[in-house]
């Protein structure tokens, strides 16, 4: 079976349903491709041949018995390593959780199993999802299949790289400040950050609980819609999951667009993208106009403050969430002369960026600084929420580039945390406001993919997909140079 077949979840579903291919054959070909490429790309931290083959065989047996097949039957999927899959290691790409095997499935994973997707393994990421390049993985950076000297983006870089290398057509990532959208843009694939509350966070290792969302990623818009459809929904195990009707996303494929009002952000020069990205974005806007959209300039006066607010709020939440990693209940323990030193020695296993954020978060929450930093950032967050609400009185969606640059060379930003944080300048505002946003391939600059980001009102993922489907039809998915 050719790698081209692993391009499309839809093609696989159809082939399995019609009996043209077995789930086992497809799983075998995905595993072969993953095993052939992974030593170079490091997209996967763990490949689970045994579980994948058992799952695929079970689907084939169900088909033989004439049972109804799930909507993702036989489609191989890669899962980010901060999402629990029963029986597979879940390390968050950290030494602190090295060797820890999840004893249960995340709700999203449970739903995938029910839908018939075949889980082939766990993907590389920045440690505990803190990073924008994958370089903060404790187990080595995943490479960008478009150019092996560049980062795949982060933190869901392994998932994006796996898709771009056509190892699987679907992947799960998680997005706290842009961690699904930015790597999707850098690797030329599709990635959605759902509305906060759309997808259960049960079984997702918490980083910043008021921002974290599991997000579907795919080689094309259709795959992303199918995957979103499978994992959306209220879950009694997550008190922040929302009890809202779920739209039929595939129905948006042929829905009419004309008259859709698309907001275009007015950006000050300081936060403008690099010229190649800007050119690509301008071209994307022309395509939207040709599709019948009405472009309206919008302003988010607080946009420039989103980044600063995020880098107070996310570390604050992380410093609290990561307190549980102390060597007592999960992961390795480094014994020392007393409990305090045992905690410290065990937590010395955290990497540099995670330590930096824990310390920053502890600092902004500590007595005397809480009001100046943390409370201030939360008030700024309110301003950002209000700015979006005001913009959405005039427009139905907002368009922007996903990231200010294309994927950057490995090693070029690790020395300067602030420069690294700036990769997320267009993705953070939607995260802070809890809004849904999708990144779809817009074109190439310097031979590297550029992403178009569409942000919508809460729970209006349907509209995002409507425009994404139409845009993809006008500008078909990018074909990455196939790594062999």
């Amino acid at each position, binding site marked *: 079976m050719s790698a081209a077949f692993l391009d499309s979840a839809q093609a696989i579903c159809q082939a399995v349903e019609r009996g043209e291919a077995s789930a086992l054959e497809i799983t075998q070909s995905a595993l072969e491709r993953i095993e052939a490429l992974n030593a170079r790309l490091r997209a996967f931290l763990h490949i689970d041949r045994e579980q994948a083959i058992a799952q695929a065989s079970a689907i084939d047996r169900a088909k033989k018995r004439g049972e109804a097949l799930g909507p993702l039957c036989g489609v191989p999927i890669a899962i980010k390593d901060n999402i629990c899959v029963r029986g597979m290691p879940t390390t968050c790409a950290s030494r602190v959780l090295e060797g820890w095997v999840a004893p249960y499935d995340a709700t999203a994973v449970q739903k995938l199993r029910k839908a018939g997707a075949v889980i082939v393994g766990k993907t590389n990421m920045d440690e505990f999802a803190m990073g924008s390049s994958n370089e903060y993985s404790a187990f080595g950076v995943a490479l960008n299949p478009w150019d092996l000297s560049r980062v795949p983006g982060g933190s869901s870089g392994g998932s994006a790289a796996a898709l771009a290398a056509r190892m699987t057509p679907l992947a799960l990532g998680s997005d706290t400040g842009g961690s699904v959208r930015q790597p999707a843009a850098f690797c030329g694939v599709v990635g959605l950050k759902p509305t906060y509350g759309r997808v259960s966070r049960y079984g997702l290792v918490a980083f910043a609980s008021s921002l974290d969302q599991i997000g579907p990623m795919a080689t094309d818009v259709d795959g992303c819609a199918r995957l979103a459809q499978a994992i959306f929904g209220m879950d009694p195990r997550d008190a922040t999951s929302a009890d809202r009707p779920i739209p039929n996303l595939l129905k948006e494929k042929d829905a009419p667009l004309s008259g859709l009002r698309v907001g275009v952000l007015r950006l000050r*020069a300081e936060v403008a993208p690099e010229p190649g990205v800007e050119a690509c974005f301008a071209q994307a806007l022309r395509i939207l106009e040709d599709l019948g959209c009405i472009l309206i300039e919008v302003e988010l006066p607080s946009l420039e403050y989103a980044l600063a607010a995020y*880098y107070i709020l996310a570390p604050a939440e992380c410093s609290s969430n990561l307190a549980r990693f102390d060597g007592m209940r999960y992961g390795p323990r480094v014994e020392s002369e007393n409990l305090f030193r045992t905690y410290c020695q065990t*937590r010395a296993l955290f990497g540099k960026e995670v330590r930096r954020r824990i310390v920053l978060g502890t*600092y902004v929450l500590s007595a005397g600084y809480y009001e100046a930093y943390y409370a201030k950032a939360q008030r700024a967050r309110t301003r950002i*929420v209000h700015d979006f609400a005001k913009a959405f009185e005039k427009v139905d969606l907002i368009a922007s580039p996903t990231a200010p640059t294309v994927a950057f060379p490995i090693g070029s930003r690790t020395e300067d945390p602030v420069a690294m944080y700036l990769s997320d300048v267009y993705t953070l505002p939607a995260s802070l406001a809890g809004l849904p946003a999708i990144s779809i391939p817009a074109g190439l600059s310097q031979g590297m993919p550029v992403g178009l980001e569409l942000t919508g009102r809460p729970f209006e993922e349907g509209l995002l997909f409507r425009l994404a489907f139409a845009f993809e039809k006008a500008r078909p998915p990018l074909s990455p140079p196939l790594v062999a």
Partner: protein
Amino acid sequence: MVPFASSHSTQKAFFVLNPPHLNMPERVTQDEVRRVLALARLELSDEEIAVLQGELDAILRWVERLNALETEGVPPTFHALEEATRLREDRPEAGLRRSEALRGAARSVEGAFAVPRVVEGE
């Protein structure tokens, strides 16, 4: 439609949002870094502390741009979508088996997590 009103001279300009003012006093001292490290149960070498102090200082200077944003009378946002939090039905459900919950721990004894001695003496 032109997406961005004005362009910039170099690509690099993007990364200089707010150049630090060299004469300003430091935001965080090495002693404060040590205090915070102890609160967070982290230990670093003196060299690492010196580097971290510089990095935190740069980050804190940079986030202080928030002070330019008027937030008088603006309430804080803890969760963006407030409708989200709700209680589930109070109905007993099967959870993890004890053996499964303990399997990932570094040490367990008689069906419990085993931790180092907490009370000194004896």
